[in-house]
């Protein structure tokens, strides 16, 4: 294509006149982003309530009558699936991806706005199908979020009649929605960047979302195939995954299928999924840290390369989720090695975040607090990941609370802290209003300290050998009575953190109506989304002409510059002075 066809052409943007056209059947990436965000957060709240109920059962067994063993497993399953896919994936890619990509690369919209709109509505359909499973006979599936066959579709598992069918259907629909959105994101990044916005001038946020989207496009087909095959096993009696089984004294009509095959397909999707969530968070947190430390991101190239390398490696580590499935030892050795290798680029990122903070002009505003909080939780979750990446360590720990503590720290809490930080960071741009600082800080400290109170003891419980997935412990010799006290304390902390999120929602909603008007660029950020002519940006984003980009996104505290930041669209000749080590303001090559 030529740059001009998409960039200067305002024709494809049909400006809607009606309220419905603007806010319901909208093709504006910003509205679609908010639709995604609101849907994802709403369904995430359901999952949060479910986790509270699970914690009540674990901390105070039998206190609440309606949490039967069946209900408990249904809560576990729905909590996991909603949080990983319908909240985090949808929010980070459908929400932040949609909002940020066109604004950060200087485009008017996504390249396929109509498909983008369809993507949201199909996503909403998948959420509705999933939620419907709460209301069908037998309730939602209680197979665990990994949906392992044969138990997922065998009588005796909660929701084996209807719940599992709706779950699989919902996943398939979600994947269709994601593919439509994902094709949009990658094509927009590759083809609709504004003049001067080379790939290496893109902010880390766009890089993270871009690579994560490619991962999603290549990984979700595995889940689709697995879901369709399991659906066929369940509905028309094929034996893709179902071996010969005697169920309640009667042989089932299946034979020869392999549950392990499902595990391979599931984790071929499932491990990249971790990075589908993590890479956008990595990218966003890089920009947050750089902006609020008034310093360029340390090792920008290395950060981009690390994102790409992590993306590539994430496809060859999947079987580390299956060490206890009885695989060939050499197979396990290979995956342990690749798992440890992936820690290298990840560690580079962590060092670079810390080195960006080093001697920076750190402003501990609320987004920065969350970004620094993320570094803590991510290091803790990442290090326990190194333990579990080793076969011999994983085997005894695999079915304990150690694993629960690990993955909640690394892919639950860490991305969520980034999401909070990102929402506080971009809220003034998105709404044109500023949130309340006090409430923001209160929200951070309760959440940050709270998650440590929740997940740190879980590692300890795991080392004691407390098994995960259990509805209640009962009398067990090797688990001391004090484990129950830890469980009670965790529950109290979890409920506190859960309720404390009301502060966040109150802050957002109240500020939207009553908050003070926000400056168009309150943090003094360099990237393009802060340079829009209007705040919040209007349909078409940029007014009559697109911005031209003259520099990378990290010109902070440039010596001799009038301000401590130079936006990407400021031409070099407007800069009176230049730093001696930077060389003359030449044109590249």
């Amino acid at each position, binding site marked *: 294509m030529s740059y001009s066809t998409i960039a200067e052409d305002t024709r494809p943007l049909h400006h809607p006149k009606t309220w419905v056209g603007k806010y319901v059947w909208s093709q504006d990436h910003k509205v679609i982003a908010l639709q995604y965000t609101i849907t994802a957060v709403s369904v995430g709240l359901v999952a949060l309530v479910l986790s509270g109920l699970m914690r009540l059962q674990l901390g105070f067994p039998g206190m609440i009558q309606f949490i039967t063993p069946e209900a408990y497993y249904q809560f576990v399953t729905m909590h996991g699936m909603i949080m990983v896919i319908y909240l985090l994936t949808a929010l980070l890619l459908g929400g932040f991806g949609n909002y940020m990509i066109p604004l950060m690369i200087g485009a008017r919209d996504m390249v396929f706005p109509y498909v983008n709109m369809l993507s949201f509505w199909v996503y909403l359909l998948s959420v509705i199908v999933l939620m419907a499973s709460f209301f069908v006979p037998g309730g939602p599936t209680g197979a665990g979020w990994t949906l392992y066959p044969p138990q997922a579709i065998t009588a005796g598992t909660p929701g084996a009649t209807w719940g599992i069918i709706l779950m699989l259907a919902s996943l398939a629909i979600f994947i269709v929605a994601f593919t439509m959105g994902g094709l949009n994101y990658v094509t927009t990044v590759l083809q609709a960047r504004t*003049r001067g916005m*080379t790939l290496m001038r893109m902010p880390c946020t766009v890089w993270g979302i871009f690579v994560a989207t490619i991962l999603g*496009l290549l990984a979700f087909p595995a889940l689709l195939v697995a879901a369709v095959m399991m659906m066929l096993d369940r509905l028309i009696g094929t034996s*893709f995954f179902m071996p010969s089984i005697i169920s309640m004294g009667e042989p089932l009509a299946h034979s020869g299928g392999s549950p392990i095959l499902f595990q391979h397909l599931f984790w071929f999707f499932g491990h990249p999924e971790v990075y589908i969530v993590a890479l956008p968070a990595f990218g966003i947190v890089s920009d947050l840290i750089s902006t609020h430390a008034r310093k360029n991101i340390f090792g920008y190239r290395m950060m981009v390369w690390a994102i790409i390398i992590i993306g590539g490696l994430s496809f060859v580590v999947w079987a580390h989720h299956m060490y206890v499935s009885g695989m060939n030892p050499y*197979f396990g050795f290979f995956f342990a090695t690749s798992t440890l290798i992936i820690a290298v680029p990840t560690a580079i990122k962590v060092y670079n975040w810390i080195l960006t903070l080093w001697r920076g002009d750190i402003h501990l505003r609320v987004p920065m607090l969350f970004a620094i909080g993320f570094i803590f939780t991510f290091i803790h979750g990442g290090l326990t990941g190194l333990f579990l990446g080793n076969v011999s360590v994983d085997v005894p720990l695999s079915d304990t609370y150690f694993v629960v503590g690990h993955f909640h720290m690394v892919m639950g809490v860490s991305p969520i802290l980034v999401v909070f930080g990102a929402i506080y960071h971009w809220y003034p741009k998105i709404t044109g209003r500023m949130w309340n600082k006090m409430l923001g800080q209160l929200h951070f400290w309760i959440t940050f300290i709270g998650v440590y109170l929740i997940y740190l003891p879980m590692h300890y419980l795991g080392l004691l050998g407390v098994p995960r997935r259990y509805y209640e412990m009962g009398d067990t010799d090797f688990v001391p009575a004090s484990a129950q006290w830890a469980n009670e304390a965790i529950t109290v902390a979890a409920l506190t953190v859960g309720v404390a999120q009301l502060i966040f929602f109150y802050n957002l909603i109240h500020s939207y109506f009553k908050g003070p008007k926000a400056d168009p660029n309150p943090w003094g950020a360099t990237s393009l989304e802060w340079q829009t002519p209007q705040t919040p940006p209007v349909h078409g984003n940029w007014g009559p002409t697109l911005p031209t980009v003259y520099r990378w996104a*990290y010109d902070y505290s440039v010596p001799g510059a009038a301000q401590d930041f130079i936006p990407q669209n400021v031409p070099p000749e407007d800069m009176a002075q230049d730093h001696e080590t930077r060389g003359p303001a030449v*044109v590249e090559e």
Partner: protein
Amino acid sequence: MKFLRELAKKPWLTRGLAVGTDLGGVAHHRPSIAATGLWFYIGVATVMFSLIVAAYVLRLGNYGADPASVAAATSSRPWWTLAALCGIPPADDWQPMAEPALLWMNTGILIVSSIAWQMARSDVRHGRMDKLPFTLIAGGVLAFLFLAGQLMVWRQLVDGGQFAAASPAYAFFYLITAMHGLHLLGGLIFWGLTTTKVMQGAKAGDVKTDVNLCAIYWHYLLIIWIVMFVLLLIT
């Protein structure tokens, strides 16, 4: 390689507009937006069909191994080794499926459909807009004929008592043909849009990309079908 060169740049050292920055679309040719989208979609679909093939191969189990070596657990079949490595116990229940003659005819129809698309491509390139509607309609109708043929194969198999649960080979056959057919149906939506444009008298330049991309997609689905068909034939 261009991508790797790009990744090696040091953006903090250079300001201003880079040489080669596209200032108006004349400097160099880049693939169209729709083409980028299509190639990414082809990547997605390739992963999906590859995973189905992987599952197929892993599910073959002891098929084709001689019983003595199975007893000694040293089958020389490559898929057996793969399955053993993945920790999948080799199954014993694989039965080759009947190969209805109709499948050969359907394959032929899909090949002709792809040829028609290639002709349509050539028509657009040479501006033969009078011939274009015929080649386009031929391409689409033949694709519909292929799908009808596949449904007839299903009908024959079901009538013969070979529904999906009959044996894993049949289960995969229904899965593969359904997935492939759905992809073709998706392509036919774009065929409909393109043909409508042409019928309403669009100029060659307006439909060139559409026809090109549809043709590429058709060829892609033909290749996928041939790979899948060969897989069915050899096992």
